[in-house]
């Protein structure tokens, strides 16, 4: 009779499936060897510069990974190689991302001074010194138009998604098809449509509302399709449970289905907003370009960040180009704040 007696002493939780320190060291060593070899390649061959070094680095990774698989335990070697390769791919994708942020911040930073966010360009021309003027008119205009566009588009988009997924109405297929077709509409066409209807026939002038409508048209397919995918994730047994309690379809949809995907719907909305926040072409045709801080969205042109960037860049002097980079900086920051705000809003009260 075999008996193993294990004393019930205090034991510590462990995770033997995680990478050990040794394997992490091996990985770093692998990267270091590839880096050294790449430096050698750059010194000897025609490859040059950081990009040349990077090409040599990836090449060395592949070669050493292949060679290593002969000498070490095959599974371990393959795992090491694949991990390093994926990390390298991640770094490669990160390069354009970091480079965009770096150049926008580096070239936009000189435009900032104490009053940059709080003054408009009413008495300043874009070629003047950088300690004058600002883009408060553009920030306010963009925020107002985004808010109106969200008010128009988010309810519409979610209702359309509910129609497709929950109601499964007779025209669900047609609605889905049209939404998909709409996502291919060029933004300037949306602008032209609003220009030829709202601007010419209704308002007889540029206006913030017209701009917001153009943005809403562009947002709608993104919001609808994302919301549709999110609603499809709700398992049918949740709906069944609600129906079995005697709830109507409307009660089921609004009290059970929508709350359970709240954060997903918020993500859908923010994706749509981020998609249109930087649109320039439709705004040039609908809200125009304006240099004075105004909150009048019903009548007359109104400033916005994309048109601010567009027009200052067009002026061509060194100061005006710097102002354009400053505008790009603010636009990036605005979208980032939108994202973070929406994520923290959606994360509260566990709603998936």
């Amino acid at each position, binding site marked *: *009779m*075999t008996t*193993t007696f*294990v004393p019930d002493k205090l034991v510590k*939780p462990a*995770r*033997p*499936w995680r990478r050990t320190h040794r394997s992490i060291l091996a990985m770093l060593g692998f990267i270091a060897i590839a880096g050294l070899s790449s430096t050698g390649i750059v010194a000897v061959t025609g490859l040059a510069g950081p990009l040349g070094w990077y090409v040599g680095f990836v090449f060395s990774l592949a070669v050493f990974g292949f060679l290593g698989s002969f000498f070490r335990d095959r599974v371990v070697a393959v795992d090491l190689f694949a991990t390093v390769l994926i990390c390298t791919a991640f770094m490669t994708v990160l390069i354009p991302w970091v480079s965009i942020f770096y150049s926008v911040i580096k070239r936009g930073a000189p435009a900032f001074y104490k009053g940059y966010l709080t003054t408009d360009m009413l008495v300043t021309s874009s070629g003047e010194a950088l300690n004058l003027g600002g883009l408060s008119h553009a920030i306010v205009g963009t925020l107002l138009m985004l808010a109106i566009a969200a008010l128009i588009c988010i309810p519409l988009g979610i209702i359309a998604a509910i129609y497709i997924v929950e109601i499964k109405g007779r025209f669900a297929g047609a609605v889905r098809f049209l939404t998909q077709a709409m996502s291919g509409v060029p933004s300037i066409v949306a602008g032209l449509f609003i220009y030829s209807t709202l601007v010419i026939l209704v308002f007889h002038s540029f206006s913030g509302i017209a701009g917001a409508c153009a943005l809403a048209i562009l947002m709608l397919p993104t919001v609808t399709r994302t919301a549709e995918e999110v609603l499809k994730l709700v398992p049918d047994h949740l709906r069944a449970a609600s129906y079995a309690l005697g709830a109507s379809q409307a009660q089921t949809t609004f009290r059970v289905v929508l709350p359970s995907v709240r954060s997903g719907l918020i993500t859908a909305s923010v994706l749509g907003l981020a998609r249109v926040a930087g649109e320039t072409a439709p705004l040039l045709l609908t809200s125009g370009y304006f240099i004075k801080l105004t909150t009048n969205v019903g009548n007359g042109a109104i400033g916005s960040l994309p048109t601010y960037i567009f027009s200052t860049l067009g002026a061509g002097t060194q100061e005006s180009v710097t102002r354009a980079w400053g505008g790009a900086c603010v636009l990036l920051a605005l979208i980032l704040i939108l994202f973070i705000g929406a994520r923290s809003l959606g994360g509260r009260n566990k709603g998936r």
Partner: protein
Amino acid sequence: MITMLTNNTSAVETTPQQASPASEVEQTSAMETRGIHAWFGKNHVLRNVSLQFPSNSVTGLIGPSGCGKSTFLRLLNRMHEFIPTAAMAGEVFLDGQDIYRPGAAAAELRLRVGMVFQKPNPFPSMTIQQNVLAGPTLSKTKVANKKDLVEDCLTRAGLWKEVKDRLDAYGSSLSGGQQQRLCIARALAVRPDVLLMDEPCSALDPGSTLRIEETIHELSESMTIVIVTHNMQQAARVSDYCAFFLSEDGPGHLVEADLTKVIFSNPSDQRTADYVQGRFG
């Protein structure tokens, strides 16, 4: 042979429990755990379980809900680690080698330790034949004669007669009981040494349950089976050995393990007697 190896609670049981004389026949164990603990985050869910699973036998894991039976089962083929907060301690031996040793390949282990889940889960995009062959296909194992393997596995799972004329139908067209037997056939196709079953009959009707119990009985001639069940009668019917788990407001632990007939007729622990007679839990 199975021995009870925890010294979890009281001073009453300071020595490991001896199995009945009937089980004194020397038998090799296919799998063995020594001092297994499991955690989810800070929550200690399983404490110091040491068990041996004798070759070609059926071991039933019984106990009330939430006592760590399923967690224990999932530790045996390294499915526990898929839960992000999971942690463990102790050793699990398969053929004398710790399956949690550094560098051990979890995928290769799972080829040798198969699993059947609570709900039938045939791959919906595959036909019956493709479902059975999914294991060898996914692990790129060469199969000399696919037709024979499919017939062999389906026969051993007790499904061949019912599906032999429609092997190209999709798995989802079968009834629940047939789907579960298809999943057993799928698990058999990689020729595992050990088969883990996590309440395989809990979603099935009595007829299908009976059919699967017969299947388990036939399979135990050639492989080691560990089965979690909430059904006392089922444990009594299919298992050769039984291990009784209990949590008692703390981490789950092993109370008693022995031959099934001993557990059900003459258990050494009062709590086991109460549980198998339905007095609590």
